[in-house]
């Protein structure tokens, strides 16, 4: 769980610039609906996360990721299986 929390904190840090001023991020924050990330921004985000966590993120998982919490769980799994 500590691992999950650590990844979550890093995701908040990376995603904060995409939020509106004063917007509070949570595990339920939606990447598209709440942060307005379009497909290009999502692809840039993937590259940044891959560098940060030293993993390759398959494109296949992108359609399953709706919230910051979803993303955190996927990254945690990828780090466990590397």
């Amino acid at each position: 769980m500590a691992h999950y929390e650590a990844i979550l904190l890093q995701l908040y840090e990376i995603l904060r610039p995409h939020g509106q001023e004063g917007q509070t991020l949570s595990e339920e924050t939606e990447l598209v609906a709440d942060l307005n990330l379009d497909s290009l921004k999502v692809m840039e985000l993937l590259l940044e996360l891959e560098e940060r966590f030293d993993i390759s993120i398959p494109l296949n998982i992108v359609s399953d990721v709706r919230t910051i919490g979803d993303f955190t769980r996927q990254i945690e799994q990828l780090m466990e299986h590397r």
Partner: protein
Amino acid sequence: MALLKKFRQLADARKSLAMVSEDPFRVTIERLLSPTEAIVNGRPVILAGTNNYLGLTFDPQCIEAAVNAVREQGTGTTGSRMANGNFIGHLALERELAEFYGRRWCDVFSTGYLANLGVIAALAGPGDVILIDADCHASIYDGCRMSGAEVIRFRHNDTADLHKRLTRLGKRCPNTLIIAEGLYSMLGDRAALVEIAALKREHGAYLLLDEAHSLGVLGERGRGRSEEAGVEDSVDFIVGTFSKSLGATGGFCVSDHPVMELVRYASRPYIFTASLCPSVVASTRAALLRLRTEPELRLKLWTNAHRLYDSLKDLGFGLGPEPSPIIAVRFGQAEDTIAFWNGLFRQDVYVNMILPPATPDGGSLLRCSVSAAHTPDQIDRICQSFASVKAAFSL
């Protein structure tokens, strides 16, 4: 109503484009005068966005072959080769392509798009990995999705990034297919193929190269980027199209792997669509012969490419990283790009307008494609139009 709601955003975008511009996506070519000129809106326009690299669409030998095929074999095959059988021309075209590439096997598909779909989805499946260059064409992305394999992008032409990702895959490398393009369609840059081929060998993966824009354009015999880079032995599968240098429509894959003969039985985009019609097969075979026997077409193409690239560079435009028959003029804002496209169109020059998200880096492009059939005068007129629109816009 809810089903169709998703089109609202698209409709709004199209409406706002129509308010400021001719619709670049609905240009109607009323009559073709040559491979490089057409009547559009009642005016003669220079075509500088056709991918007609060798200018063979009006080649008398290709036309004659197509006309004879229509007279002798009819207008279409009316079904799949699996169900309706092979026409003798399909087999001859596959044999000639295999011989041209010095490969044992060739499968022909009904379009280049279907060739990527059919080959990628047959070669890779669940449990396998596909590593694709981030700038690959949509047909490659769609083939990857259709395969059910794990799909991972590497940064465009970044072989250090590819190496890192192959290292991460470790024991999964023998189940990994790397995919790149010989010449990238948006910026006209070549694949870093020597390095990619070395990484493929080092890690024991497979390599598929899409030579759609490089067939007839690169290499001493026109076989593409793999020939030019001297690494044909390391490229397991070459995919290509008939719709550019060969002036028709259709696609193919050549390989020395005997599985190519089985791919047809495992490929839904091969099985469940009508095969190439006889006229297309015939004109493609004639065009391939021209490509093989007339290297001067390639020389003309490159002379024109350098002439346009160098002139646009001298005019101060931001271009793709290297001269090639695909010359991308880079713009920051979509609005500037649309306005510039209109300026060129009003000066009777037609180029391709490419807006995000179809562009590699989120910018916008006006893409010129040069043909061996362009005259030096036409190339100069294209440059003059770019210069005068630039001056009018004070860019």
